[in-house]
């Protein structure tokens, strides 16, 4: 427990506190008046309102589109279901930059819809909302669908036998059971869209800006640290509230449902209505999830003189690119892979230790049924591990630059700076994946090993590790994918001559010219292939519901 705590203190709390302090502390005086000034600025209020509004709208839209999908995946059996389940999950691990460019290619200027019908959405809020649905579809399908598949259909049958109609049975039996899962999924979606950065940065244009984007602008463009600090704190508070609510719904979800093996509850669709639902879901997935990615790939091949590999071949030479681009764009791929591998190792170490500590320090509840204080504190830490997902990555990145620049922690010029920041985002995924599996290990199995003479470390190695090896691989894959895609923090701390893929894509998109645009699409395609590859490998490993993502 000590190592993860120290890690979070040094690489998360300290940089964030530093940057907030620098913004609000002027010559030893706390400038709390900044809150008033910033909060009465109509522009800031507009950003706040838009952040909340678009997050709520994105969440509602995602639920509307994805809940039928969750039902289809939970209750129907159809050919290619496993593959489709993996395909659906691809967008979630995709870098936001790739999603941004994909939607740009679909609905932006010169995009597919523009070419076909002259429709452009990149200056409207719809592009942002659709991109958010694209991202979070899998969150709903996984969290809600996963539970739905394990609900015993006989419960509904019991209600039917007792005289409830088909819909009444669903409403009175299934819906209440699903409620907490739906709430948890909705909160996750809200959290992700509330702190959305890459998507809004690319699709929002000058008109639309979320808190996170505004923090970036204030910090990087206007160097207005006080305003950025206030905005960071506001976002921090909002995320904290969301996480508390999330933890509460998750606990309720764990409550008292009797679950059955998911493989027994699905069957082939019957009747016209069910087939229509299945095809409708497939159509939604095709249009919303597959089409943007397909267009992205198509654009990356569509060179100035017909289809070809022009954009890919020019990636490897610095000369062909803009002269300010110090290195060949393709080098970004190798940078990304190396950073990603290092970040994965760190995330696994820290997340694994945290998960092990969280499992161990859970005492059995006393017969009185009261939860001991220690347990509640541990649960609190459990929730805190999620914080890096919600706290402004921009702030973390900038905080790294400011806080870690003097001995003994002078990492500003260190190669490790980037993987450390990326690991911060990977840890929550590692913990979330490992925790349910570790908790499912019967504690008496560990006791059996201890009585047979195994020391605590030996017990971990001999009992826990073999049982969680698969979960560990899955966690590693997630950590790798999110590290690859991390943008908000990396864009600050990556050295100009060592950009990662997302940073390189963003740079290319920020420049005019067909070559730059094409190269951005090509790089995005590469990034997508790497992430999707990692995910598809994971899908082969995963056979049970070993985590929330």
């Amino acid at each position, binding site marked *: 427990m000590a190592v993860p705590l120290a890690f979070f203190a040094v690489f998360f709390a300290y940089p964030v506190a530093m940057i907030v302090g620098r913004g609000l502390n002027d010559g030893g005086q706390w400038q709390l008046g900044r809150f008033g000034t910033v909060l009465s600025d109509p522009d800031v209020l507009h950003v706040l309102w838009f952040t909340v509004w678009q997050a709520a709208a994105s969440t509602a839209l995602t639920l509307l589109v994805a809940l039928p999908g969750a039902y289809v995946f939970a209750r129907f059996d159809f050919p290619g279901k496993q593959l489709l389940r993996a395909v659906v999950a691809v967008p979630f691990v995709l870098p936001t930059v790739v999603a941004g460019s994909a939607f740009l290619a679909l609905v932006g200027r010169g995009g597919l819809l523009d070419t076909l019908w002259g429709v452009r959405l990149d200056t409207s809020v719809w592009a942002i909302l659709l991109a958010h649905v694209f991202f979070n579809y899998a969150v709903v399908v996984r969290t809600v669908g996963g539970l739905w598949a394990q609900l015993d259909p006989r419960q509904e049958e019991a209600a039917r036998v007792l005289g409830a109609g088909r819909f009444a049975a669903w409403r009175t039996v299934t819906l209440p059971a699903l409620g907490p899962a739906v709430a948890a999924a909705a909160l996750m979606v809200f959290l992700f869209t509330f702190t959305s950065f890459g998507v809004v940065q690319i699709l929002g244009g000058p008109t639309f800006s979320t808190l996170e984007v505004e923090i970036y602008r204030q910090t990087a463009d206007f160097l207005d640290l006080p305003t950025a600090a206030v905005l960071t704190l506001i976002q921090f508070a909002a995320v904290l509230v969301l996480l508390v609510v999330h933890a509460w719904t998750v606990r309720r979800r764990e409550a008292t449902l009797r679950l059955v093996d998911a493989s027994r509850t699905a069957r082939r669709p019957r009747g016209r209505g069910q087939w229509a639902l299945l095809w409708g879901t497939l159509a939604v997935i095709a249009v919303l999830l597959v089409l943007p990615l397909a267009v992205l790939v198509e654009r990356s091949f569509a060179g100035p003189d017909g289809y070809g590999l022009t954009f890919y071949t020019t990636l490897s030479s610095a000369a062909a690119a803009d002269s300010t681009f110090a290195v060949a764009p393709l080098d970004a791929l190798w940078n990304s892979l190396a950073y990603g591998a290092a970040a994965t190792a760190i995330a696994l170490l820290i997340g694994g230790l945290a998960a092990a500590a969280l499992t161990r320090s859970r005492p059995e509840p006393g017969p*009185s049924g009261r939860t001991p204080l220690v347990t509640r504190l541990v649960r609190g830490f459990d929730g805190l591990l999620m914080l890096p997902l919600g706290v402004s990555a921009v702030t973390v990145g900038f905080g790294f630059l400011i806080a870690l620049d003097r001995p003994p922690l002078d990492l500003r010029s260190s190669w490790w700076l980037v993987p450390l920041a990326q690991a911060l985002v990977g840890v929550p995924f590692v913990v979330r994946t490992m925790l349910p599996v570790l908790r499912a290990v019967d504690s008496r199995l560990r*006791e059996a090993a*201890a009585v*047979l*003479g*195994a020391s605590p470390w030996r017990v971990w190695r001999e*009992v826990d590790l*073999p*049982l969680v090896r698969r979960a560990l691989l899955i966690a590693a894959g997630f950590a790798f994918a999110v590290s690859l895609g991390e943008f908000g923090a990396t864009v600050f701390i990556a050295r100009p001559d060592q950009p990662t893929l997302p940073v390189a894509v963003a740079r290319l998109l920020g420049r005019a010219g067909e070559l730059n645009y094409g190269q951005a699409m090509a790089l995005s395609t590469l990034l997508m292939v790497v992430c999707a590859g990692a995910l598809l490998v994971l899908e082969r490993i995963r056979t049970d519901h070993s985590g929330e993502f």
Partner: protein
Amino acid sequence: MTAQAGTAASEMLRLDGVTVRFGTPGARPALDGVDLEVAPHEIVCVLGPSGSGKSTLLRAVAGLQPTDAGTVRLAGRDQTGVPPHRRGVGLMFQDHQLFPQRDVAGNVAFGLRMRRSSRTEQERTVAELLDLVGLPGAQRRAVASLSGGEQQRVALARALAPRPRLLMLDEPLGQLDRGLRERLVVELRRLFRELGTTVLAVTHDQGEAFALADRVVVMRDGRIAQSGTPLEVWQRPATAFVARFLGFDNVVEASVQAGVAATPWGKVPVPDGTPGGPCRLLVRPAGVRLTAAADGLPCTVAARTFRGTHVALLLQPADGPQIEAACPLHEAPETGARVGISFAVEDVVVLDAAAE
């Protein structure tokens, strides 16, 4: 007795005032000042209903459950602060807890590996033990492919492999069907005799306890209610609780005067030397003799249950609680018949008046 290491170790295990509390202070302790000794090579069986603290007792000895008071000594050594993996005891869990990712040999050899035995030594011991528990050649089998009885044998072999100085068994036969249990009890007893193992077992099944143990310890609410050989406990239950737990229901309040007790069932003879005053009496069903309706205490047969070797009768006297009687098959009266009963003094037990 002095606590010198050499002389104090006449017993393998010794518990002095061991207390374990769960949850809030003030709640009833799971173990309440338990004193217990187990001599080398002795087989002691702790018997009690669920919730009496039996399993907690084993966990406290193994070091898996921290104690709130009292000491646990193994071979004379205080085990306070010694972690489970250094206590050198064996524990067989109620549901076996075999390691699912290892095969049979991997499970049995686990304790040997922890003690860094050589590979050849491990292989030899595993083969020996699998022979001993009746599963020769099962080394490479997957744990999931074993039946309940086989799992139980593997768990036993695993617990025995490191040659623990004390072997503890938690409901060793709890999950097995009846025929297998009876066979295994005999096998286990023979095995422990041969190996000279010191055994502390817990069970809620009196048949299992009586068949397995040299000495039976009856527990109730975290305390020891009675300790003795199976015969002693069976013949002379110390308290009404022990009597009822053993399945005897003929327990009544009584007042003893001059060799005869006054009870709701009338006069009942008591053994010679019984002190006078109020107490409780147990009359074993075998000691309830049927007579003609005119003689003895008049009763109505309220129910009769065929028990194979005999018929158990439930008799309702005109006054007082119902009486259970055991009656040979051919003499058993029909339900509703009117009979008289008398009590045989050799099956009357005076229970401890003070204890419940």
